[in-house]
């Protein structure tokens, strides 16, 4: 059996209390009747090796596991598809990994009510496929194949269409969770309109597994639009200083015009290789009349673009659409929309070859250092100067300076920068999450839900 001591330099020392309780824990877990196995090398969570992996199939089984964990003081980390389990801060300790892969049933698709109830381990792809059979969809773009409903909620992940449909929290109408002590709690329900009681669903979106385990979710759905058209244009590259003047061809100005446009695009995305590249902007228009509205978007973009914008129908998004711009160092920048140009200028001025991609009109952008070419189309961007190697340890300091410098640059614009993933060394040099005003309240919530700090301890902002 693997113990934390054997698994790497980051694993915490086993405490006396744990050793005491540890003895019968494995037996007690097995006694729940849930499939439990010893963890293997592939089960590490951000470098921390759990002792066991459990594969529950129902909310009740998760509750049984959590009751045992409470009794034996086991630290628990839930896993969905495991697509990005390694992102974020490593857990302080992890005894039991609860793999939700077998919570994989779509429990109820009430198509007439545009509502679906699913178990948390259902993958977003499987869900999309089932819903499409009834010509409906959950209007939440998921960046990574294999992501589960639970993982998507726990990380509050969202993609391009957040502009029109909002994010997970806006589409989630009911939730079932199991708390650290095994309590099963539900909130919300199966109706779209409902204000009875606190909305625990909101609390658990973005909770990174630190409050409890999501076992079921209910979402509101949308009809699949009859047509989708993308309009893509390349805006001239601009010297960083010119961006500050906000010319009508700047990404910020174009985004503002598109957001205000009566063509009502569902998404407006940017792809940019800073500091010298041109800006590729692409807008999605959805609906019965998508084609004529795409024409209006094209006209609007034509005034700002270098060449005639490209219109594609029939589901052909640009290759980079909704794809994370990189995986080694990935940051997320949020600013009020009017601050976009200023933020882009600040990124360019920092001098590193960053790739910036994301929701331009919603002003939620991902920054990858250094850029990877994966997922991009062979546009001008690919022809840009040599891309340096992945930063080695010596360069982590440079990345840290980029993060803290950019954080300082965007703060006056009302912006914030978080590190989604980075080499562990970076975490020693900068705070991955940045300042969070509501942190004391979040801590108080955590203390109430998980007083013994057994749920994914340390995985969220502020060491929560």
């Amino acid at each position, binding site marked *: 059996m693997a113990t934390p001591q054997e698994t790497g330099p980051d694993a915490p020392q086993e405490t006396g209390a744990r050793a005491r309780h540890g003895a019968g824990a494995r037996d007690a877990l097995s006694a729940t009747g849930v499939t439990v196995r010893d963890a293997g090398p592939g089960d590490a969570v951000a470098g921390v090796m759990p002792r066991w992996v459990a594969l529950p199939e129902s909310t009740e089984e998760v509750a049984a596991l959590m009751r045992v964990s409470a009794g034996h003081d086991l630290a628990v980390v839930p896993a969905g598809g495991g697509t990005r389990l390694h992102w974020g801060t490593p857990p302080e300790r992890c005894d039991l990994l609860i793999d939700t892969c077998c919570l994989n049933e779509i429990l109820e698709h009430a198509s007439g009510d545009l509502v679906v109830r699913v178990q948390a381990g259902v993958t977003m792809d499987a869900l999309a496929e089932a819903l499409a059979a009834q010509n409906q969809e959950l209007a939440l773009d998921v960046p990574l194949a294999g992501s589960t409903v639970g993982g998507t909620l726990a990380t509050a992940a969202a993609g391009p269409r957040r502009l029109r449909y909002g994010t997970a929290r806006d589409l989630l109408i009911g939730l079932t969770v199991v708390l650290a002590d095994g309590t099963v709690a539900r909130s919300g329900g199966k109706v779209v309109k409902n204000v009875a009681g606190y909305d625990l669903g909101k609390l658990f979106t973005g909770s990174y597994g630190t409050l409890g385990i999501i076992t079921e979710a209910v979402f509101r759905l949308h009809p699949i639009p009859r047509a989708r058209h993308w309009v893509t244009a390349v805006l001239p590259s601009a010297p960083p200083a010119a961006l500050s003047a906000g010319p009508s061809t700047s990404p910020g100005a174009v985004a503002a015009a598109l957001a205000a446009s009566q063509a009502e695009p569902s998404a407006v995305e940017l792809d940019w290789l800073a500091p010298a590249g041109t800006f590729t902007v692409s807008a999605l228009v959805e609906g019965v009349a998508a084609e*004529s509205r795409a024409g209006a978007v094209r006209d609007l973009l034509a005034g700002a673009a270098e060449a005639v914008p490209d219109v594609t129908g029939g589901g052909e998004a640009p290759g980079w659409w909704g794809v994370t711009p990189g995986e080694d160092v990935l940051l997320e920048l949020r600013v009020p929309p009017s601050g976009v140009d200023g933020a882009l200028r600040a990124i360019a001025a920092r001098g590193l070859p960053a790739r910036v991609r994301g929701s331009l009109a919603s002003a939620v952008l991902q920054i990858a250092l250094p850029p990877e070419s994966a997922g991009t189309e062979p546009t001008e961007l690919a022809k840009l100067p040599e891309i340096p190697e992945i930063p080695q340890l010596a360069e982590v300091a440079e990345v840290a300076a980029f993060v803290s410098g950019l954080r300082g640059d965007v703060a006056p614009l009302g912006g914030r920068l978080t590190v989604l993933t980075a080499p562990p060394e970076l975490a020693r040099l900068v705070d991955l999450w940045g300042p969070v005003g509501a942190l004391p309240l979040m801590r108080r919530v955590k203390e109430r839900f998980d007083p013994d700090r057994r749920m994914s301890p340390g995985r969220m*902002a502020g060491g929560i």
Partner: protein
Amino acid sequence: MTETLDELARGLAGVLPPGAVITDPVRLRTYECDGLTHHRAVPGIVVLPESAEQIAAVVRLCNEYGVPFVARGAGTGLSGGALPRADGVLVVTAKMRRILQVDLADRRAVVEPGVTNLAITEAVREHGYYYAPDPSSQQVCTIGGNVAENSGGAHCLKYGFTVNHVLALEIVTPDGDIVTLDADDPGYDLLGAFVGSEGTLGITTKVTVRLSRAPETVTTLLAAFGSIEQGGQAVSAIIGAGVVPAAIEMMDALAIAAAEAAVACGYPAGAGAVLIVELDGPAAEVAHQFAEVERICRDNGAFELRTAAGPQERAAVWKGRRSAFAAVGRISPAYIVQDGVVPRTALPDVLASIDRLSAEYGIRVANVFHAGDGNLHPLVLFDDAEPGAEERAGLVSGRILDLCVEHGGSITGEHGVGVDKSRYMPKMFTDDDLDTMQLVRCAFDPRGLSNPGKVFPTPRLCGEVPGVRRGVHPLVESGRAEQF
């Protein structure tokens, strides 16, 4: 007034501007209820603060004296959420009515909590923007109240509720800290959890709202049907066809008769039900949808269709619907406004059951509802002069909520739980569900001073001081969880 309140009032006068502390019994009485008038209590003290700092000072003083406080906006709430405490302080936001910032480039506005819902739209309308959630009470109700109730409106079918349009809140926590909850904060969505918490997690002092672009085209259709069943089928067919209207409202014959008596709205004679369908968005999109909705209505037996061409005609179509609550006063001496939700597909079943209840108890029920999202507003009519009628009406009203829960719906879609429905919460939620919600309450308000006695059926003590864990976990103590 008790000695404690006496002392507290003197303390409050020290931290608030002159005249902002009300202790005169006659003036206190004007605050004794909200829109749900049969629950009344004269507040111990009323304060009229002008800033977040003053509210924080008030809350800290309340903490010092262990006195509960209740926030109040315009008092239009329909669940008794703003019902004062005789032993407490009522914090009225009437002097916090400034629109602090309108930022069209960022499509947002920052306002004080006492600003009315409509005032935000009025401030930006000339630029082609508006604030989307539109409760019928929007001329009067405050944004602070909207946040507390997560208020909706006729157009929330397409555009969502208050929670979908608030980007940040400044709040005074129940222990008197000023904290900002931001939608962009990583971690728990505390902003989302605070919205709809009915004043039990603190007092909102500043609201950043999203401004929406006014749609290019708005088309409003009035369809008259012989029966409510036909209308209901039309609603299902519209949604089934993939159309998401901005609003779909329905009224039954009794509601139509009341509206006719009150405002002469001129709806088609002989209608068993009318449907108002509003479509908005890009002109090309609306044109398509309109043709589809028209066809569906006819296919489902609509005998008259009217289209409102401009704003005036649209107002005329909406007039009957908007006046419906008040209008039933014309046909009944007294009435209860109920608010429940059922899955849209259960509407025909539930309406038939309401009919049966109505017959069984000899109590008339006029039905007005946001049909698109299954939000019912049955108006339970009775004569308060008739012995026993009020009790029977109360029973019918309660049974309607049972129906909603039985069909997988909710006991409230927009009016909130308040004091009115806290006793129904156990019908929808288990003790474990409620205890878990209580954990949130205890995290924010361990002393239970912020609007106590609302939302939850049995006030529970938090028992523990946050950060320090002593004794047995409350869930264990109550026998709901075991610890090995």
